[in-house]
């Protein structure tokens, strides 16, 4: 086996250019997913009628099926749905003009939301009930107690799980390559196809994923130090 070492460098150069796109595809689903998860956590804690069973259906489905399926369902299903609705309303819309990345981000946001609900929920049950009562005793509303006392601490407790999910999602973006999104794995395929140096290209991809993951872990360790100030009692 002869490894074309210089080609690894060439592949790296091509892939560095798509790092921003990959990060976008990682961060945006986590942010949107977090919003979904916060709203649904509130629905589940307050046992809001009709919304609660719906939220259970959502988490059950998205946690029980692979992310690649969510991407396919949204990528194939949503344009057809948009077309159908547009036709019904006599508007002319061309769903093919929507960039593919948008579908990937939508699909991964839904996936992330379902996982983040569980992460936040485990944080919420770890916050001691006494503080919640203390907050209520001052006359705070349910929303204020949730926002000001419960959620910040739940997110703090859930933080290590949260960064694990973030790293997991960085790696999950690779499946977007199957619908030709040129992120890191997709780019590896493209550059390798020129001269059939697949091994070199994927070694380069491995280096980039590794470094990005190390950066996330480093940020996590800094954040952990900051919150350790009041963590001692947990």
């Amino acid at each position, binding site marked *: 086996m002869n490894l074309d070492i210089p080609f690894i460098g060439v592949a790296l150069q091509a892939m560095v250019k798509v790092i921003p796109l990959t990060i976008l595809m990682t961060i945006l689903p986590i942010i949107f997913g977090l919003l979904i998860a916060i709203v649904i956590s509130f629905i589940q804690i307050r046992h809001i009628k009709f919304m609660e069973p719906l939220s259970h259906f959502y988490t059950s489905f998205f946690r029980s099926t692979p992310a690649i399926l969510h991407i396919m369902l949204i990528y194939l299903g949503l344009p057809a749905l948009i077309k159908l609705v547009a036709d019904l309303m006599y508007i002319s819309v061309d769903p093919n003009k929507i960039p593919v990345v948008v579908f990937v981000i939508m699909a991964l946001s839904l996936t992330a939301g379902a996982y983040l609900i569980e992460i936040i929920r485990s944080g919420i049950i770890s916050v001691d009930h006494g*503080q919640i*009562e203390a*907050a209520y005793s*001052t006359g*705070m*509303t349910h929303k204020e107690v949730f926002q000001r006392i419960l959620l910040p*601490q739940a997110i703090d407790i859930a933080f290590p799980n949260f960064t694990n999910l973030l790293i997991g999602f960085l790696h999950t973006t690779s499946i977007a390559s199957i619908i030709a999104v040129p992120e890191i794995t997709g780019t590896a395929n493209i550059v390798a196809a020129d001269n059939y140096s697949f091994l070199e290209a994927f070694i380069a991809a491995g280096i980039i994923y590794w470094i990005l993951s190390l950066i996330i872990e480093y940020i996590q360790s800094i954040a952990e130090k900051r919150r350790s100030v*009041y963590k001692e009692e*947990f």
Partner: protein
Amino acid sequence: MFQAKNIVKSFNGIEVLKGVDLSVKTGEVIAILGPSGSGKTTLLRSLNLLEKPEQGEIIVGNKLINVNKTNQQDILELRKRTSMVFQHYNLFKHKTILQNVTEALIVVQKKTKKEAVKIAISELEKVGLGDKLDQYPSQLSGGQQQRAGIARALAINPEIILFDEPTASLDPELVGEVLEVMLKIANQGVTMVVVTHEMEFAKHVADKVVFMDQGKVIEEGTPHEIFNYPKQERTKKFLQKVSPDYIFKLKEQRQLQHTL
């Protein structure tokens, strides 16, 4: 003026409060005594509806709340006009001592941050924590945490403060500093209801002592009446058991029998 009438509360079908009345005059300090399971903490928690009784009325100032027909608005108003000090302090762990006190002032009373900080600092100085403003609860001793809890309760300037066994989870040597602060605010005319096992505090600081057992008020009166001339057999027995004299007498008796 704060009044609770005919409070009935049960847990899983067992009645823990069987129609309790309590009336507190402005500026009065009331100590609630009683054995464990007598319902005294449940009564206290019913007064700001942290526990929702099945029956009863609560009157705070000119507002009457029927616990059967409460709406969210009533509950919030009652809680805004009362405050509570907890056995386990229940400070917000992710906030500094100063933020613990300003929290309700900013969120509930809609004060500006500047106003809130000013009030909070003055209350924290009152309880002797002027130099701990930026510390987190986990960095403080139990006594300091409880004093911060008292400052938090005082800061919202409530019509009444409810104390739920405020010294029960403290190391013995830290009890004094908390009682000292409580005495200080009692002398300032703050209306207080204190569920406690500190007999000396009840004896010397309370204006009225309420003795509860098995979900009922058995007897109430001035500390002098309750501690020196209890009328009910149950009260006598309880006071006998909590006073050390009783044990020493037993020991003397045994020694006496031994020598005979």
